[in-house]
């Protein structure tokens, strides 16, 4: 009975958002140069996974704040892993240039139906997940202040 549960549960978890304390799902998607970036390559860093799109107003407005945070903590072991669900790569590239995004940035076209958005059960953007050096989720949709607090205590 227990063994059946063990087999069944993971199948359900595929379409659930990883909860705090759970391991983040692997993300392997192309960056602006078409090179595939793996979220797991960031292990050892604290990573903010940021789901967004160029047409999302609130996402765009938060980019300058993320940029500030990134410049301040990138050398101390902080990375941002932006995941765009833009349908048009050109719009995505323009937004990256305009918002001067220098952190890791990948895309999966398809909007809300993009497999990565479905797997992470993204219902709205921006949606973000802060993960620790082992890839465990420590906060969902944290504010800039919360991120900074986690970084201060987590990056030593």
């Amino acid at each position, binding site marked *: 009975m227990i063994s059946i549960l063990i087999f069944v549960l993971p199948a359900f978890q595929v379409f659930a958002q990883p909860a705090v304390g759970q391991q983040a799902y692997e993300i392997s998607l192309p960056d602006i140069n078409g090179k595939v970036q793996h979220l797991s390559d960031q292990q050892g860093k604290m990573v903010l996974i940021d789901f967004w*799109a160029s*047409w*999302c*107003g*609130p*996402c*765009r407005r938060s980019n300058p704040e993320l940029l500030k945070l990134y410049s301040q903590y990138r050398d101390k072991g902080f990375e941002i892993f932006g995941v765009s669900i833009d349908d048009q790569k050109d719009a995505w590239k323009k937004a990256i240039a305009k918002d001067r995004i220098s952190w890791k940035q990948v895309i999966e076209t398809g909007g*809300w139906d993009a497999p990565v958005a479905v797997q992470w059960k993204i*219902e*709205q953007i921006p949606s973000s997940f802060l993960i620790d050096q082992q890839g465990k989720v420590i906060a969902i949709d944290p504010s800039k202040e919360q991120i900074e607090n986690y970084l201060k205590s987590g990056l030593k």
Partner: protein
Amino acid sequence: MKKIIFILLIALTGLGAIAQFKTGTLQAAGLTCAMCTKAINETLKDLTFIKTVKADIKNSQFIIDFKEGTTVDPDALKRAVEDAGFSVAKLKLSLSFKNVQVDNDSHIKMGDKTYHFLDVRSQLLNGEKTITFVDKNFVLAREFKKYAGKTLMSCVQSGKAESCCTKEGITGNTRIYHVTI
């Protein structure tokens, strides 16, 4: 002769015929960014007459393409927005007209729908034009108030044929869309 040509024209174009709704723009209002939620995209895409829904960030609105050969139902569109937890702030639909005479504060049947034009000048519509829906809950409350003040007919309040309209031969309770250009 002129008369015959006129009759022929009518026969060819169909009485004040209106073609397809082609595209539309929709602004949804709510506490959060409507475009940034999956819910509204889903409820809109579930409508059988909608082909695609795209976000237009510059004007914070949705651009909707309708499927050809389907009947567009503005009330269903409004319900879809409301089911997702938002309200319609603006709905503009573009359609092609063929010799349709519209007059201010008067009713006209086009296709399967009856419209009541408000705040327009008398004109003959030809080609692709965009109409804006101004019925209650299709615009912000103050906008509705503004347009409701442009007519003395009570149908503007209910969106249905009242005594004002049945006089003209419109069946009672017929849905009447209040629009402007």
